[in-house]
Each structure stands twice: as C-alpha cells, then as structure tokens.
C-alpha cells in the first residue's frame, strides 16, 4: 500500500516536471520576438496618446494668454486686444439648438422604423439602410454644398441665416444618430417585446413603453456625440455664410446673419499675426472644454447604464 502510493507520487511529480519543462521551454527567438512586439505596441499607443496630449497642451499654452471672461463678453473686433467670441457663441447656441430640435426626433424615428417596423425583405428598406451607411461617409463639406444649393438658395431659399446652418448640420449628423440609435434599440432583447405583445399591447405601445425606455441611454450617448460633432464642425458652415463679418448678436435665427464658434476661430486664425493666433487658441480652448465635457458625459452615460441582458 505505502509502496504503491509512493510510486504514484513519484510518477505524478515526474510527469509534471516533464510537462512544465516542455511547455515552459518556448524557443528563445519566440520570447525575444514577443517582447519586441509588446514594446512596439506600447510605443504605438504612447505615440497616439502623447500626440493628442501635446495638442491639448499646445492649445492650452497658446490660449492661456488670452483666456478669460473677455472671450465671452467681447464681440468681433479689428483689434486683437478687444476681440472676443460673444457673437460666435450666441450664434453657435442658436444653430445647435436647432440641430437638437430637428435631428433627435427624425433620427430616433428613422431608427425605430428600421429596427421595429421595417421588413428587411423589401428592397426599399434595404435601400434606406445602404443609403444611411453611405451618407455617414460623405465629407462634411459636401453637405455644405447641399445646404448652399437647397437650403440657402434653391427650393427653401432661406438665405444666409442660422436656421439654414441648423438644417444642414442636422442632415450631416442624422446618419450618425440613426446608426447609434439603431444599435441601442437592437440591444434590447426580443423577449421584452414578445412579453409586451403577448399581454395585448400594440406595436407602438410596445415600442414607446418598453423598447424606447430601455434604449434611452444608448440613444442619448449617440445623440450627444453627434451634437458635439455638429458644434465643432466648421467646414460646411463656411459655405453657408457664417464667415460674414458681423458686429451684432444674432437674435432671430430666421433672419439675422450669424457666425459660429469654430468659424470665428478660423477667421481669427486667418489674420496670421501672433496676437490673433493667441485669440484663436483661446477660442479653441473654450470649444475644447465644451466638446470634451459633452463627450465625457456621453461616454460615461454609456458605460454607466450599459445593460447586459
């Protein structure tokens, strides 16, 4: 008996040592290559983060000179010491207010249709889907051309006003909102819908009372990210009259000329002397604070309320 167990112990120990020796004995080349690979990966992600950090620090250093309450209280000026961003900030608020008003109902509506109602067998529904994927990749300046041809002039003929910018930017961010909202809606498990339908709720009742509430955090994240993109977007608005030199604040988005923060920054930047560059950097700082705050809230929301069903 004793002898047998002793033998088993020896056999087990022997087998174990042979196995570990065999498994632990990776070829030297593999170990070295693995280390180098790991170091390269670490280097790459450090370069990415360092680059973005340098960007933030550079703007911070250049902009801190001029950063202060004057940015919010002073209007556009011909002298760098007197220049501020009040008109531009107010213009941005009008434009973004409009964007939220238009893009949220349309975007969420389209997403609900595609996820809850559309029959994927029908060619028109597939067309809509493919089309939205394509629209998401269209350069923003092309939307500017669209806005110029259809909204500022052409059929809508609104002129160079804040409302035209709102409508154009709405079209720009709609695909982003639709794609994000669809993902959030798709994440709601079918059993919830089936339960609701089985209890006699209609399709819309199910959508409104069960699916939508469950998908709200995801939708909100998508909406905030998209709106913050619209806020920082300058290229399409360049074509929509936001570069006009204006001295009065916009009070009527249907009639007054306007400008927005990123375009005003670009305008100051274009005047090329160092004082103007500092003013532009201060403006970028204001914009960065707002945009990064919005995005942080959005990402936090998603991570906080993300549900695994």
């Amino acid at each position, binding site marked *: 008996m004793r002898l047998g167990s002793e033998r088993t112990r020896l056999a087990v120990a022997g087998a174990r040592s042979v196995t570990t020796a065999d498994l632990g004995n990776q070829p030297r080349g*593999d*170990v070295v290559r*693995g280390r180098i*690979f*790991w170091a390269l*990966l*670490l*280097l*790459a*992600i450090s370069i*990415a*983060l360092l*680059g*973005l950090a*340098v*960007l933030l620090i*550079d*703007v911070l250093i250049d902009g801190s000179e001029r950063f202060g309450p004057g940015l919010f209280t002073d209007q556009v000026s011909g002298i760098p010491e007197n220049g501020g961003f009040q008109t531009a900030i107010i213009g941005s608020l009008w434009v973004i207010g409009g964007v939220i008003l238009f893009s949220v109902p349309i975007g969420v509506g389209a997403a*609900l*249709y595609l996820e*809850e*109602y559309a029959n994927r067998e029908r060619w028109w529904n597939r*067309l809509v889907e*493919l*089309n939205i994927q394509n*629209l998401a*990749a*269209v*350069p923003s*300046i*092309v939307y*500017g*051309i*669209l806005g*110029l*041809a*259809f909204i500022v002039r052409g059929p809508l003929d609104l002129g160079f006003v804040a409302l035209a910018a709102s409508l154009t930017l709405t079209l720009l961010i*709609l695909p982003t909102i*639709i794609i994000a909202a669809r993902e959030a809606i798709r994440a709601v498990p079918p059993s919830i819908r089936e339960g609701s339908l089985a209890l006699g709720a*209609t*399709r*819309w009742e199910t959508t409104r009372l069960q699916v939508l509430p469950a998908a709200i955090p995801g939708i909100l994240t998508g909406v905030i990210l998209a709106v913050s993109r619209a806020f*920082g977007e*300058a*290229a399409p608005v*360049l074509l929509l009259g936001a*570069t006009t030199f204006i001295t009065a604040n916009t009070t009527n988005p249907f009639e007054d000329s306007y400008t927005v923060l*990123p375009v005003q*920054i*670009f305008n100051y*930047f274009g005047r090329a002397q160092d004082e103007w*560059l500092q003013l532009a950097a201060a403006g*970028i700082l204001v914009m960065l604070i707002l*945009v*990064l705050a*919005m*995005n*942080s809230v959005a*990402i936090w929301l998603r*991570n906080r309320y993300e549900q695994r069903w």
Partner: protein
Amino acid sequence: MEARDITTSSRLAGEPPLRRLEAPSRRYGEKLIQGLLGLCAAISVAVTTGIVISLIEPSLGFFEQVPIGDFLFGTDWTPSFQPQSFGVLPIVVGTLSVTLWGLLFAIPIGLAAAIYLSEYASPRVRKLLKPTLEVLAGIPTVAFGFFAFAFVTPFLQDIWPGFLGQGPNIFNALAAGLAIGLLIVPIIASISEDAMSAVPHGLREGAYALGASRMRVSLRVVFPAALSGIVASIVLGVSRAVGETMVVLMAAGNNPQLTLNPVEQIQAMTAYIGTTATGDIGTGTIEYDTIFAVGLLLFVLTMLMNLVSIRLVRRYREIYE
C-alpha cells in the same frame, strides 16, 4: 382569418361567448405612426438625392464649358485667374498626398493601439484608455488645424535633417497629413478594437492550447478573424482624411502644385471648395460652378470607397456564435 373561423365554429351551445382576439378597431393610429416613422427613414434617401442633384446640375453647366477630359487629366489648376485652366489633377494629388502621410502615420499606430487594447492591456488599463480615446475622437478639426500650423510645422522645421534638402514650408502637406493622421488614430483604434474584442475566446484558447505565443495569437488568430472590422475602420479613416477640410485649409496652404513632395505647399480639393466658396465670387460664373464639379468628384470618390468597403466587409466577415 382562419383562426376566427375555428373559434366561432367550435363554439358549443351554452358556453359564454368567446372574446375576439383582434383589436376592436382598425388601429389607424398605429398605421399613422408607422407611416411617420417610415417618413423619417425616407428623409435619408431624400438627402442623398438632394446631394446628387445639387452637385450634378451646376456641374453639367461646368462641363459644357470645360471638356470632362481636360478637367480630369489636366495638370494646371488656375480657375480664378487668367489664363483660366481647369485641370483638376494638382488638387487631387494634393488631397492624395495629405491622405497618404496621414495614413502612413495612422494605420500602424491605430492598429497597434487596437491590438494592445484588445490583447495585451489589463482590464483596468483598457477601461481607462478606451473611453479616453473615444472622448479624444471628438476634438474639433479646427483644433487639429491650429495644432498642425502652430506646433507640427515649426517642430518639423526644427528637426528637419539637412541631407533631405529644403526644410518644410510654413504651409506644407506633411504637417497637415500628420495632424489628420492623429485625428483618425482614435477612429481606427476604437473600431478595430471593437472588432478584435468580438472575436470569440474559444479561438484564442485553442491557439494557446496548441502552444502559440501571445504575439502569434494576436497576429495569426485574432487579426484575421477581425479583418472585416479592421478594413471597415481603415476605409472610414481614409474617407475622413480625404474629406477633411479645416486641417488642410489651415496648414497645407492654397497653392495648387502637382507634387507629392511633403514639404511643399499644396492645395487639397476640400481646401479649394472652402476658399472659393467663402471668397467673393458671383453665382453663375464658371469659377462658382467649379466648386460643384470638385464637390462632385469628392463625393464620387468617397462613395466608391465606401461601397468597396461594404463589399469587403461582407466578404471577410466571419460569423461566430
């Protein structure tokens, strides 16, 4: 219909009347809502149609005056001064040059960052880095343009080694390209990481069980399995780079030259549209119509890239349980 027949016919005398299962009314409200939601979705198609019409109509006017061959293959781009010449190649090459430098920076860095986050980083590190990258992906492009002009260009001028010849111009393609590269790194990294994380663990464990090293698992198992997502992220990065306006406008200059030399001043297609549209050019003139012709070219280019990407993604998609 059939269900009702069964319920009515199988009713026996003396039983209480069965409740009908259909809704008591025709539910017009439901239909209305479905219609409204469908309308929201249809707006996207209207937008595409609108884009195409708004681009094609003035472009047709343009191509009546400039032969399409001269436009696509001409090498002189001087639409706004005499003698006018409408060869679009210099600004197309300008865009390609900036995109090329951007991608040379962004693809290796973005993919390496994605592999690190998905395969090497501890859960704690990933939980910190992934959201950081996503937040940074939202930095407005005006900030990148400013950064390219006020930091990258002076930096390149400082470190430019003499044997490479003339240092970078105050406006140059390289600085703009690098800034755009930095702009698309978070996009590529984030989407590729999603694709890599979605690769099922069984595949990795199988490879480890066969004695593969972590590097081998990352490169030979996870990378190919996630290829469709990786391709999609790169194509999205390319279309962002091609369509990027503010960075090239602020840092690459406005001097159309047919060159791939990274230190030279160039003009990109988007920068041409931006500058010309904000200048004081009257509607109806041929300079004005040029904006639309260039816009059309830009639209067609990005559209083609995106369609190819959708194809590729379908082709390489591996479906796992």
